[in-house]
């Protein structure tokens, strides 16, 4: 039975997909009488099934070598596209995380979406996402990973655009689709260019190839840069980060997933591609550079936001930047650990604030306050999520961050500095959110704000428990570094940066400094608040040039191409219109025409008999003169 469950673990994405399909009939246009709620329940059951299946399979994979399952898909001349599925503890572990977080987010959504009719659409898209992410986790082939990433991009478009009657949702969904699409298309270029080099798209074979490959460094750098462009868009890295900000227009339960797992899908592919990417030092340093810039920039932006969802989305970008750094310095395990701990903590943070938004209506942190006494559970969840996200010793991310920093301590100490900075800045931004929402005096929007009802609190509590138990779980699986061999300096620095970040911010926001806080330089504050004016930057560069080229191409099409063809017609029309005057109505003119025709024909026919002599004669006459 157990072995059977292990071998059929590829069914997990199918459960989710079936759940998504089963939700469709409860769209308001199909089943008109019962209301949309069964869509959610059906989906929840399928997700639970997927979770249980993958959890059992995870136990069975432990301490077993990874297995591969092959499903033939398409075989044409010279190209064999076989879906490769990896059943290892890492991939099945990822299934457990994805289905588990999905299960909790779907319970949360039952509470959150109570007053909404769009459950059919919402849950079917959640099912699609769950299926896509599970398939991505299992997929052991770059080509199919790309396919799934594209499906997820389409899913993002539809899910962000759930409430499409709001104009900002429409623009946000558009940007989310196009930005991720651009990255994915670059990824496609890389994927296609990798085939002639490596001759395979299977991750293990790529790793084998990369171990002994001898490729032109320029080619490898270009291919590698294309390959990181896809994850760059997916993980909302600079400069493809604006979509995540605008994707916060979507419903909160989907945000839980987006912040925790969807964004990590790019990181997953990046980690899998690490052996190929490490072939080129340029690509590695580009990854580190992008990651570092994003991590620092996004955590600075997160501090300056007033929209609570956007505060958190920029923290997500920052942490994905750390994952980029980790992959850039070939620390896969630290990257995977960071993705895991970040996913759980970020989901907990979004659940906590999602509950606040649900019955305080506003998302503006400057209009909230004083919720601690009335909403302790959300507050505790936020605190635990914060501590789980920043480097705070017993909890998850500490171990991931220290693992990463430990490996860099000797070789690239400045990267440790960036990690510490990002950690401190994230501590500042999360503490600021906490102080603004939960501490201080209640403001108008938060004066009467009861705790949310059980479907929203229950998943929050479960996740809170899991966040707290994550170190124990990791320890029992012996995934944590040994305390004795740890670099105590790094650990102290991390802890110190977290504590000082939290405490200084708490002092600022709980103290008597006048609110809202103004930096001495208003320009700098605005720069961060408007995320470096990225929308303007897009509009002035890419959008501007594409729009201009489109207009030019349109004009060329309209005037030059169409014009040439129309000119032919116009000329024949003009020819007819003007040549008709040759029919003058004068019989004498006709007679002249006949005569001219006859004489020209006569000259032409008889030319060989006298033409040369005629020309000679003319020539002689002219020379005599």
């Amino acid at each position, binding site marked *: 039975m157990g072995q059977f469950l292990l071998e059929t673990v590829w069914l997990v994405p199918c459960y989710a997909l079936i759940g998504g399909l089963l939700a469709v009939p409860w769209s308001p246009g199909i089943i008109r009488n019962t209301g949309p709620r069964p869509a959610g329940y059906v989906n929840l059951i399928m997700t639970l099934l997927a979770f249980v299946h993958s959890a059992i399979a995870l136990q069975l994979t432990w301490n077993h070598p990874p297995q591969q399952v092959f499903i033939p898909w398409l075989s044409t001349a010279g190209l064999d596209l076989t879906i490769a599925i990896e059943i290892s503890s890492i991939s099945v572990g990822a299934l457990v995380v994805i289905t588990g977080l999905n299960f909790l987010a779907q319970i949360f959504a039952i509470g959150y979406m109570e007053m909404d009719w769009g459950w059919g659409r919402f849950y079917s898209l959640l099912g699609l996402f769950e299926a896509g992410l599970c398939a991505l986790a299992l997929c052991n082939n770059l080509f199919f990973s790309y396919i799934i990433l594209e499906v997820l991009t389409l899913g993002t478009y539809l899910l962000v655009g759930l409430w499409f009657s709001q104009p900002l949702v429409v623009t946000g969904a558009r940007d989310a689709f196009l930005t991720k699409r651009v990255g994915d298309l670059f990824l496609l270029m890389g994927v296609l260019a990798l085939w002639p080099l490596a001759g395979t798209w299977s991750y293990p074979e790529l790793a084998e190839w990369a171990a002994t490959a001898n490729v032109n460094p320029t080619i490898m750098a270009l291919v590698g840069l294309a390959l990181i462009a896809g994850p760059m868009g997916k993980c909302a890295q600079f400069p493809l980060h604006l979509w995540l900000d605008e994707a916060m227009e979507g419903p909160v339960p989907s945000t839980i997933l987006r912040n925790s797992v969807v964004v990590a899908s790019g990181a997953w592919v990046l980690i899998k591609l690490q052996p190929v990417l490490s072939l080129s030092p340029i690509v590695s340093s580009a990854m580190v550079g992008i990651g570092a810039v994003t991590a620092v920039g996004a955590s600075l932006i997160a501090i300056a936001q007033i929209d609570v969802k956007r505060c958190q989305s920029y923290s997500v970008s920052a942490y994905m930047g750390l994952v980029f750094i980790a992959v850039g310095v070939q620390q896969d395990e630290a990257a995977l650990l960071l993705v895991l701990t970040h996913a759980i903590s970020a989901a907990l943070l979004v659940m906590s604030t999602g509950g606040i938004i649900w019955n305080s209506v506003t998302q503006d942190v400057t209009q909230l306050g004083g919720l601690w006494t009335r909403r302790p559970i959300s507050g505790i969840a936020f605190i635990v999520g914060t501590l789980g996200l920043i480097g705070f010793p017993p909890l998850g991310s500490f171990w991931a961050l220290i693992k990463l920093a430990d490996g860099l301590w000797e070789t690239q100490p400045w990267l440790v500095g960036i990690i510490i900075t990002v950690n401190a800045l994230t501590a500042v931004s999360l503490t600021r959110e906490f102080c603004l929402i939960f501490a201080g005096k209640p403001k108008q929007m938060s004066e009467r704000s009861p705790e949310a009802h059980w479907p929203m609190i229950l998943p929050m509590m479960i996740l809170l428990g899991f966040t707290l138990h994550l170190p124990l779980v990791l320890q029992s699986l012996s995934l944590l570094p040994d305390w004795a061999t740890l670099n105590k300096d790094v650990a102290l620095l991390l802890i110190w940066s977290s504590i000082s970040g939290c405490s200084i911010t708490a002092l600022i926001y709980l103290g008597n400094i006048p609110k809202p806080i103004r930096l001495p330089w208003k320009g700098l504050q605005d720069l961060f608040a408007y995320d470096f004016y990225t929308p303007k930057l897009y509009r002035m560069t890419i959008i501007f040039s594409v729009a201009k080229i489109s207009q030019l191409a349109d004009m060329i099409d309209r005037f030059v191409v169409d014009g040439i063809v129309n000119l032919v017609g116009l000329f024949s029309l003009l020819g007819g219109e003007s040549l*008709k*005057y040759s*029919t*003058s*109505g*004068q019989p*004498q003119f006709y*007679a*002249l025409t006949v*005569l001219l025709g006859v004489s020209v024909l006569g000259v032409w026919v008889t030319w060989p008999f006298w033409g040369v002599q005629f020309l000679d004669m003319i020539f002689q006459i002219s020379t005599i003169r």
Partner: protein
Amino acid sequence: MQLQYFLLLAAALFCIGIYGVITSRNAVRVLMSIELLLNAVNLNLMAFSNFLDSTLIKGQVFTVFVITVAAAEAAVGLAIVLAIYRNRDTVDMEQFNLLKW
């Protein structure tokens, strides 16, 4: 006396006739110019029959036919001119441009 002179004379007469046909405004003068053309042709026929075919003189037979047909044609032509004149009260060729584009 040579054949070429007769032919040149006939060609000159023909050209004068052509000029008359194309430039005259009076319809009767056009008919008269046509007669010139026919007479130029007759000169050709007579000259050829005289110089090249003096025994069988087929050219002269042709000439007789041409004169006959020319007379008939002139009669029909004048009748047409008269018919037009009755309708339009003029024989000016430039007034007869109704059948244009």
